[in-house]
């Protein structure tokens, strides 16, 4: 019994140490964000702000079109998801429940998207987006992601699990394929949609490189870009308190969502690993 509690104490100690390593950077930036500008320039780290202030957050709103970036990010992340839901539903349904010529070849062509790194085709996609006249628009950021092999793969598994008899019974009652999809298959697959949605939104909320390549003005730039660009300006790179305030403003909502729905997020990301 004693060795048992000794063991669990060791486990707690190790996990606590690891968790501290992970969380100290976050605590540090939160505290920094509430400090006065010059307070951070001390040789010995001062953890607590001497005179806690919100000025850094207000300063961020003055220094850049923060809400514009926020709106752009929402449009991009949710816009991608909205279109993806349509494309992956139709494709997954076809792959899961229909027999047709060329199915296997098409499925492999779909999986190609999982196999290639999007960064390796960035030049060509930049050229394509430019030729389509989309450069420096939110649609340019969204364009390469409107079809999703991962989402199709995930939903296909769920759709495959729906018993054939259910579809046949529905067909006897005069329920066509589209109606069956809308009223039976999609409701049954809601957990799959949720898992995919969480991963997709997180990925596109966080994305930096592709938006960097295809945007030029604040009208289309997302939050991560606003942050990155601010950090590379002369005043931004010297103003740690404001930079940390902005970092905090960028991550606050996703982080809060994660803490509230921790289980769902982690399960979704688990599936993203297993799905490719």
């Amino acid at each position, binding site marked *: 019994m004693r060795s048992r509690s000794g063991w*669990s104490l060791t*486990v*707690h100690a190790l*996990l606590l140490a*690891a*968790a501290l390593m*992970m*969380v100290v*950077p976050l605590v*540090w*930036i939160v505290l920094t964000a509430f400090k006065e500008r010059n307070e951070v*320039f*001390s040789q*010995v*780290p001062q953890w607590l702000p001497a005179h806690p202030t919100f000025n850094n957050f207000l300063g961020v709103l003055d220094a850049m079109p923060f809400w514009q970036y926020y709106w752009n990010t929402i449009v991009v992340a949710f816009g991608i998801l909205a279109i993806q839901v*349509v*494309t992956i539903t*139709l*494709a997954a349904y076809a792959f899961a429940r*229909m027999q047709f010529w060329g199915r296997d070849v*098409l499925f492999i*062509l*779909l*999986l*190609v998207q*999982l*196999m*290639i*790194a999007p*960064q*390796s*085709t960035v*030049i*060509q*996609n*930049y050229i*394509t987006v430019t030729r389509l006249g989309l450069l420096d628009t939110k649609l340019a950021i969204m*364009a*390469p992601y*409107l*079809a999703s*092999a991962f989402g199709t793969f995930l939903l296909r598994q769920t759709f495959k699990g729906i018993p054939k008899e259910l579809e046949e019974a529905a067909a006897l009652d005069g329920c066509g394929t589209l109606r069956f999809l809308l009223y039976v298959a999609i409701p049954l697959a809601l957990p799959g949609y949720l898992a995919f949605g969480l991963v997709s939104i997180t990925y596109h909320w*966080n994305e*930096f*490189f592709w938006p960097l390549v295809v945007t030029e003005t604040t009208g289309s730039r997302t939050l991560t*870009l606003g*942050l990155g660009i601010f*950090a590379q300006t002369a005043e931004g790179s010297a103003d740690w308190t404001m930079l*940390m305030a902005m*970092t905090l403003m960028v*991550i606050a909502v*996703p982080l809060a969502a*994660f*803490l509230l729905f*921790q289980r769902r*997020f*982690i399960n979704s*990301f*688990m599936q993203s*690993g297993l799905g490719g």
Partner: protein
Amino acid sequence: MVGRAPAVTVKHREMRNERRGRQPLLPLLRPYLYLLPTFSFLFIFTHWPILRTFYVSFFKWNMATPKMEFVGLANYAQAWNASLFWEVLRNNLVFAAGTVPLTLALALALALLINQKIRGLAIYRALLFYPTMIPMAAAAMIWLWILTPNYGLLNYYGKWLGLPDVHWLGHSKLAIWALVMVGVWKRVGYYMVIYLAGLQVIPDYLYEAARIEGAGPWQRFWRVTFPLVSPTSFFVGVMAVIDAFQAIDQVYLMTGGGPGNATNLFIFYIYQNAFRFFDFGYGSAISAILFLILLGLTLLVFRTLHRKVHYA
């Protein structure tokens, strides 16, 4: 009666043929209609760019030569002869060799700890996983601040851990290890969760059997756990290598590839050539090389995934 039976069959067959003949076009086309949106996007933004990247890589196409000019393998020869290309490749290998084993070992260790049935599990898991949720751009900002010379946390507390008191990101040897540190911090929670999924399918009776045979915790790990999570390890390992070859945000935001080119990694090198020097021909050639490297690694994963399915 005996004579009628075939007649029924024939008639039945005729009916079936008739039905097939009358089959309207829509049901035949339906699967293709369902696939059309996905495959239009896939073709424009995935298949076509791959082919086109290889095609363009055989052309000279830059600021000085705005009209594409066929040059055969010249762009590849340019890469072969550029010492910077090899430096970038070596940097990326160092970065992968630094991040991958460390991330895997830590992720597995943390997954084993989390997998013990202890109190406060959800809190630990959340604290270890949250860096996965935040943008790499935000992580880069956090670490820029922590790594700042004179005022940063790392130099002050790093002394306790025996770390040198230097300007990490300005140091030609250490800068890449600062990026490794950020990479491990950002990814370890994600791989921990994947390991957790792998650990949870190991049946309890194997551990009980090992315990009855008198195996201690150490032996149970090496004889039961380690071999049984090895498919996960392999999968996670290759994924992590692919990740390492795709790293760009932290390079762009934290070091800009410097000092010198000490942290210039593959994607950043592509970015520089294509979008700063506007050399699309050469940029495409190195993209094609990266594409082949990553494709090789990914095929490896897919093959083992297949094997994993067979095991189950």
